[in-house]
């Protein structure tokens, strides 16, 4: 950091209330407005930054050293990382990992992601914890530090994530197939035998979900978020998967919920949802969603399986949640967060329809809940 400190600060974070924090920029240059959220994971920054669920968000990493292992092709969770920026305590370093193919900051530059370091990310986290979700502008370009008024204005004017259908933006535009299984040492992806066919509705799907489905024996057909009932059934799926993704479930639900309701009403195809997919399923079943104060973003979240009583440590990344107090009678709450008792899983009573709020595919995070994928496949028999 000392080498940086000898230079002048050249980047800043500006909040709508006019507060600003100055630091040193890296990665791409530019100015963006987005929602600030913190992530407490200590590993897996590349997976986090490339997770499409972070659309229109800036990630504050609580762990100070981010970038230690560089980046590689295998750890991308999407083809095009979409997070708007990251805020770290320390400057990314030269990578040290037998798997690395480049530096984090170079990769961010390629993908147009702004980075700012020299920021007390713990303090930032405590601010976010007390204020709740905050919109902000980050700026790393020529006049970043002299342009405060216009940056404040920009922060104020940014509409925020609530009400926005971000899934549409990150979803694929045309269907495609997936066959590659999970990563194994020394860097190979398996190609497991497939005996089931799954249609995955892409609200911003993470690659590792596809790999987990393939690993469980599913040939996966990925379809856009606005897919119709008929298009889905045309693929003759054994199971339907509802993916994770960014934005407000109510906004995306406007078109996704009716489709889903029709499937549930007219077919008996097993359905499995993760994260945004979970929220959309809850809406389709008549539940409600709410915007959380600061969301859950990390890889250490305990979730209790209310059926078995077991606790799993999970990876989470969500700013909206299913309101557990407003679940319809035919919906069973199956999982709950032990951190704040928020809902983490539901199933439709008597049906092969279930979903979880957290990320069983991990990447990053613990793989305690991988079994959900086999459960999904088992339901198809």
């Amino acid at each position, binding site marked *: *950091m*000392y*080498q940086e*400190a*000898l230079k002048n600060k050249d980047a800043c974070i500006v909040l709508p209330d006019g507060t600003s924090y*100055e*630091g040193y920029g890296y990665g791409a240059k530019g100015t963006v407005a987005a929602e600030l959220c*913190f992530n*407490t*994971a*200590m*590993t*897996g920054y*590349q*997976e986090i930054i490339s997770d499409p669920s972070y659309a229109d968000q800036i990630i504050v990493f*609580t*762990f*100070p050293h981010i970038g*230690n*292992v560089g980046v*590689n092709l*295998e*750890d991308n969770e999407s083809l095009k990382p979409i997070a708007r920026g990251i805020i770290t*305590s*320390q400057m990314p*370093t*030269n990578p*040290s*990992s*037998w*798997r690395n193919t480049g530096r984090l900051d170079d990769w961010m530059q390629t993908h147009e992601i702004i980075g700012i370091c*020299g*920021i*007390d*990310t*713990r*303090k930032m*986290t*405590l601010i976010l*914890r007390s204020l709740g979700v905050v919109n902000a502008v980050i700026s790393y370009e020529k006049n970043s530090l002299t342009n405060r008024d216009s940056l404040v204005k920009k922060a104020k004017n940014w509409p925020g994530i609530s009400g926005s259908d971000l899934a549409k933006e990150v979803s694929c535009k045309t269907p495609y197939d997936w066959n590659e299984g999970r*990563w194994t*040492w020394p860097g190979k992806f398996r190609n497991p035998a497939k005996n089931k066919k799954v249609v995955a509705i892409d609200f911003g799907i993470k690659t590792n979900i596809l790999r987990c489905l393939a690993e469980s024996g599913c040939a996966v057909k990925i379809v856009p978020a606005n897919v119709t009932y008929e298009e889905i059934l045309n693929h003759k799926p054994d199971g339907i998967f509802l993916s994770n993704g960014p934005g407000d479930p109510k906004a995306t639900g406007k078109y996704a919920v009716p489709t889903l309701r029709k499937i549930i009403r007219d077919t008996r195809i097993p359905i499995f949802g993760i994260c945004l997919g979970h929220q959309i399923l809850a809406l389709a079943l008549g539940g409600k969603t709410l915007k959380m104060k600061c969301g859950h973003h*990390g*890889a*250490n*979240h*305990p979730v*209790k399986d209310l059926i078995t*009583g*077991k*606790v*799993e*440590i999970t990876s989470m990344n969500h700013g909206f949640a299913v309101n557990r107090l407003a679940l319809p009678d035919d919906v069973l709450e199956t999982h709950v967060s*032990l*951190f704040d008792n928020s809902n983490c899983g539901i199933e439709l009573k008597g049906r092969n329809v279930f979903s979880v709020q957290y990320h069983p595919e*991990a*990447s*990053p995070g*613990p*793989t305690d809940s991988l079994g959900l994928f086999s459960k999904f496949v088992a339901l198809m028999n």
Partner: protein
Amino acid sequence: MPKRKDISSIMIIGAGPIIIGQACEFDYSGTQACKALKEEGYRVILVNSNPATIMTDPEIADSTYVEPINVQTLEAIIRKEKPDALLPTMGGQTGLNAAIALEKSGILAKEKVELIGAKKEAIEKAEDRRKFRDAMDALQIESPKSKVAENMEDASNALETIGLPAVIRPAFTLGGAGGGIAYNEKEYFEICRNGLDLSPANQILIDESLLGWKEFELEVVRDKMDNAIVVCSIENVDPMGVHTGDSITVAPAMTLTDKEFQLMRTNSIRILREIGVETGGSNVQWAINPEDGRMVVIEMNPRVSRSSALASKATGFPIAKVATKLAVGFTLDELINDITKTTPASFEPTIDYVVVKIPRFTFEKFAGSSNELNSTMKSVGEVMAIGRSFHESLQKALASLETGLTGLNEIEFPNTKEEIISVLSRQNSNRLRQIAQAMRSGIDSKTINQITRIDSWFLERLEEIIAAEQHLKENSLPTQADELQTLKSIGFTDARLGELTSLSEETIRQKRWQIGVRPSFKRVDTCAGEFPSKTPYMYSTYETLFPKSIDCESSPNDTEKIIIIGSGPNRIGQGIEFDYCCCHASFALSNSGIETIMINCNPETVSTDYDTSDRLYFEPLTVEHVLEVVEVEKSNGNLKGVIIQLGGQTPLNLTKALSHHNIQILGTSPSSIDLSEDREKFQDLLNRLNLKQPKNGVARSEQEAINQAKTIGYPVVIRPSYVIGGRAMEVVLNPAHLMRYIKDAVQVSGNNPVLIDSFIAGAIEVDVDAISDGKKVTVVGVMQHVEEAGIHSGDSACSLPPYSLSKKIITKIKNQTKMLAIELKVVGLMNVQFAVKGNSIFVLEVNPRASRTLPFVSKAIGVPVPGLAALLMAGISQNNLKEPKLNFYAVKEVVLPFDRFPGVDVLLGPEMRSTGEVMGIDKSFEQAFLKAQLATGVELPERGTAFVSLKDQDKNEKLVEACLALDELGIEIIATKGTAIYLKQNNIRVTEVKKAYEGRPNIIDFLNDNKIDIVFNTTAGVQSIIDSQEIRTISVAKRLPYFTSVTGSWAAAHAMKSTKESEIRIISLQELNTIREV
């Protein structure tokens, strides 16, 4: 699932004395375990021979036995206490081995005692190399190529499969004792033979060499519902090849991708499941080939460990406490996270800082030992530091070591590249500074990585520190707050900044304060700030670059408060005893309504547990860091002052600087402390009181030393001023010896004077502890040393009360102690060392602070003396403690780490070298001494042959009495010529044996042929010491009981005699307190 109701009493076995590889971390875990069980209403029976532990305080368990940890004693305790269950996982390898031995002896089955936490099968599966390997194969988890050998033929076959270099480790030994890496066949067979001898199971494991691989550890906790969490990942900066205990380590792991980390995590949990650790904590060690990521499991420990203590302190997650509760049936989600108080224990701590642990070595105390590091652990202690970057934590940790470092200080170094490479290629205790020095001389991190195999990520951070140093040297101290703040955030101490800019530390501090560069204190909260935390566990950092923002989470309270300065890393001479004292001050003051604030940097201790004091600062014990804590705590409430008497020499060394900053020192005034440490002033004081002192002087130059010694008369005891543990202390016999001492051992100068005392040969040493409120003095303990004067008090066994001193002498000693305490205006504690020769009493030393013997005394008299002392210092109460009377004997014996330092002479001397102590209690001195011997692991023979060879001064009535006792037991005595003649003159049956250089067969042959069962050997003079060293070396290797003083021999012989006469009795401290005379 709630706690079990079918069991109501639980036994815990502690780890025994502090030894290398097993330090106070097991007091920390054992104390947590006892408290956790009592909290749940179980009756707790505790056995631990180590009196200097918090866990053996009578309040911690219901029945506390300070008794030897061996099958015979444990069986007796089980028969008496009839526990329902035994928790074997809290007392380190000692506790685990003892539990297995009990299981094998059949007593557990007979008395229906259930092993909880880990079953015998699980323990064996984890510890038995072959079973562990088979289990890993079943899981398809890779282990290093490996063979198990139970004899030399196996070893020879194994060599063909494994190849060289090969790693050899004996099974069931502590800290890998006796293992090593063989690079050639000769070494290979030597190490194998040695390992087979040392392993209690006569089993060694021979592994493919993973030298240079990256090394990691995960701390895993599992409950009976199969919920499992990884509390912490730890990465070793030192690659494979250096024992984890000797490695610099970092938490969390810094160089793993998530895919690798999750693989390691998942497999660690699978391993616990497969081994069958049903409940509790275990650590799993992994190695990764940096070239291709091949990951192999090294080992797992099915118990809490040194690493779990570190992980607990690094994350705030109390592994031992949680593991204990899981062992009695709770599940993780039923337990609350003590730090946040709002979230459950069933989560994985995530941290937003970097933790660095650095081991502390004491090679300088073991002349002739090499400071090279390998798979045998050699460090005696460790420090931990927390910062918001690796740089900051590393430099804070270096400053915490108290080895004179202020950061990456320069070190003497060769000039040529070849020589530098040769230095770097031998991993040794100075490696970090050598690497820094190599960087200063222009060698890049890539080259260093190739030589040392230390990951380039760590090396590049070192490079950044060096670059900042370089920049600072070329410019001057920055005047801009921002820039100085950044320098501080890299971890530079004020002292180091001073060295780099040729300013004094104090000048740097003033300048820094003037421009407002101050640390902020952040909390260790287990959750990286995601939830509010209720527990004030803090560290300082300069990370924030927010302009003018005050970003401190310390939030000092508006209370009456006292700061207690801890004792820093364990080292020989200053260890757990002082932590015991600090903890008791905290307990007593908190109970009296004072808010207690602990500062310490030793992760192994009870004092750094988050619930020992009201507030905890995990900080280096330097003037700079302590001042900043004082400043922030002063900002609200009433800081009554700082306690510096209890943490050994560490806080005492800060006294002057703290007083200079007008910080109130509680208790005995700094001027009195100075008076007791200033030789000349102290001499005046003794003269005033009409007390005797050995003739002595202070020398500030070589010539002065020569003159002084001559005036005083040889032999003299010589040592540097202001040291603890007799560092570089030596009995000097003549002028030539003195010259050698000055040349090799110390630098004598105006700032570093040496103290010279007349050596009173054959005197009895006496240690006295006293407590005073300035008016009334109570002598709490008078301890007679078993070894005579000239052997460091810390290495000598001692007896409370004295076993052979006359009442008259004892009364005189007490009176002299009281006079000294009054004259020095002691408020709090004082320790005095006396030498008694005939009817003369000499004052050797006065220390107005807690002593090493205080925990021992506290246990023996049943009063937590340091706690009382803290109340006196705080002015809360007056001294109304009556002088204790004992109707039994308590004997303290020490343990020495010679098995770790092959080739080092085991003769005791004025330089302290013991690592820990045990206590034996009985009605007779002899039995108490015997119990103390047993507790150190020494089994005195009941028959067989004794080898006796004593120097001329020791050919006296003590020797005769000792040999008569042996003779009565029917033990054959063989002796070298001089001793044999003397014994024959005194009508003792003896067979003469040749010395090593007198031809064959000689004593060495006898020892090698296992014909000797006990050794009494004292010696003087350089040549005879050299001549007889082999005798002692073989004795240590063969684990023979050996005594190197005539008084020790005398006590041993009498103890042996008394075993024959009576059964071993056991008594708990609680029972002891009921039979006390008041």
